[in-house]
């Protein structure tokens, strides 16, 4: 395969896999916003926490894969009281919840800075094999991450569309008062949704950790990207978030083949401006 085409293909696959990870995180954000009415500016920091926890688990036990179990457990333990006791009063108030979660973001980041430190560190590649795809050598770990993300996304889809819990969540997303009136225990849905959203973000961080470096500020980039993905996909549309995540990241990947990474990111944002100008409500409206 000619060199540029293989580079583009490589970056495209990179982008798609990255898009799957972003989809996980963004879906978490979308659920939190849709069900709880919280603009979660700390979402990126939950992603970061997932990566940091993965780092510690890997250093302590030597086994990276253990973190895929440890992270959800730790997040559940921490996120549930966070929602119940701290976030509850801000739910439904967009501007207020935005600032409140900025406050939480400060706290999480500083804790990470104090414990993990300010130096970016790398986690060793847990699966250092590579596969030859269409003439391109592709890292095995990334393919695995893609597969795991797809698995989690499928599980999420099953949860939201094929279980009674999922119906309750989607009902709460559409109309909270109506859901209440129909006897759905909204408080329970609130806690579980926040935990679910947090777990998704943290898992994204864990999976992404060996690919990027683990840095206490790594959440900041992610959170903006996720918000854009949610908005462009269309508020309230989970399908839209998924498609937007994949398309945006794939597009960014391809553009990185002829632009610098910073330029590629900026170009994506410009494209988003244009998309939102033509379709201000996003691509898919629920």
């Amino acid at each position, binding site marked *: 395969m000619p060199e540029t085409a293989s580079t583009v293909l490589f970056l495209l696959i990179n982008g798609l896999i990255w898009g799957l990870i972003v989809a996980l995180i963004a879906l978490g954000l979308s659920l939190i916003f849709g069900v709880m009415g919280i603009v979660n500016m700390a979402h990126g920091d939950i992603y970061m926490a997932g990566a940091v926890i993965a780092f510690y688990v890997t250093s302590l036990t030597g086994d990276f894969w253990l973190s895929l179990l440890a992270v959800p457990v730790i997040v559940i333990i921490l996120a549930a009281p966070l929602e119940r006791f701290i976030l509850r009063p801000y739910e439904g108030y967009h501007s207020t919840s935005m600032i409140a979660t900025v406050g939480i973001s*400060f706290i999480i980041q500083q804790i990470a800075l104090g414990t993990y430190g300010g130096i970016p560190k790398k986690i060793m590649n847990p699966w250092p094999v590579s596969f030859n795809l269409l003439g391109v050598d592709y890292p095995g770990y990334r393919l695995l991450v893609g597969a795991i993300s797809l698995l989690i996304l499928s599980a999420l889809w099953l949860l939201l569309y094929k279980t009674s819990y999922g119906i309750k969540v989607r009902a709460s997303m559409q109309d909270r008062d109506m859901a209440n009136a129909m006897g759905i225990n909204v408080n329970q849905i609130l806690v579980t949704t926040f935990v679910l959203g947090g777990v998704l973000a943290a898992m994204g961080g864990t999976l992404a950790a060996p690919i990027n470096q683990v840095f206490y500020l790594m959440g900041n980039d992610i959170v903006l990207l996720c918000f854009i993905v949610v908005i462009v996909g269309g508020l309230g549309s989970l399908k839209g978030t998924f498609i937007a995540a994949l398309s945006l990241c794939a597009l960014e990947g391809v553009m990185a083949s002829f632009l610098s990474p910073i330029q590629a990111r900026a170009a994506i944002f410009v494209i988003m401006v244009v998309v939102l100008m033509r379709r201000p409500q996003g691509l898919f409206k629920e």
Partner: protein
Amino acid sequence: MDVAKTSMDVSPPREKISLPSYFAIFFLSAFFILGFLLPKGAMSLAIQIMIFSILAMAYDVSLGFTNQCSLGHSVFFGGGAYGIVFGILYLKIGVLPSLICSLLFGFVLALVTGVISVRLSEAYFVIMTAIFFAIFHLLAMDMTWLTGGDDGLTMSLAPISLGFAKFSLYDQRTNYFFVFVFLGLSYWVLNRMAQAPLGKVFISIRENEKRACFLGYNIFGYKLAAFVVSGVFSALSGGLYALTLRYSSADFFSFTWSILPVVWCLIGGLGTLAGSWIGVVLMSVFQYYVSAWWTYYLIIFGVIILVILRVSRKGIIGYLAGGR
């Protein structure tokens, strides 16, 4: 019900001087006096507080007066800072004309981003402004030949000559009062605007946008006007910041400058103009002193934010003035 009563029997309710105005007068007087008393280190903090107060006020016009929660104000702040760079380094004009450049940059940036963003409804507006922040920040960091990137560009300033005297901003006290004058002027202008018909229309849009629309107001036009006013004064703040530091960098476009005004306003009180100054003082003093003995002072700050918002969504002054 008889209608014949002449309207001269009753007069319009007197406009009482409100708590925020008292606070503003107190704050400005205090800072005027402090200008003669403060030692060097504290004076530089005080100058910073004054510059940020302009930014906070500017942001209040957007969020507090017309309910437009923009996350893109760093575009105007950074734009204002680079307006100075443009004037001093490229056009090689003086300090005051460069400041006019800053205002112009702010005006154009706010107009362009506003025309695209203002028509969008709440959440979409926030994201669109955030996208603009990201675009400008990324471009500023990338185009180092123009902006100096993260390292930034330093400038040397010629003395300002006003015919009767020359002032050099290198003298800290001069710098202080230079900024003070602009703070006072900005407050005066924005306060007049708040009490004028324009300001009242802004508030009515915030209170009930649909109702205002059905009274015959072109909502888009007014919201855009508020956004542009907000942008211009944000740029003024950025310009003053660049002048004080004699430096500007791509960092002035970073998210910090977009989120700090929101925090200042929400802590101090929305729609009060001067209330946001409390937020500025709290955060700046905190950062300056607490960071000295605990590096992780932001944790305390995060907790303070949560507590304040828990007690009153309208911030401190808003709460005291009788809101909730």
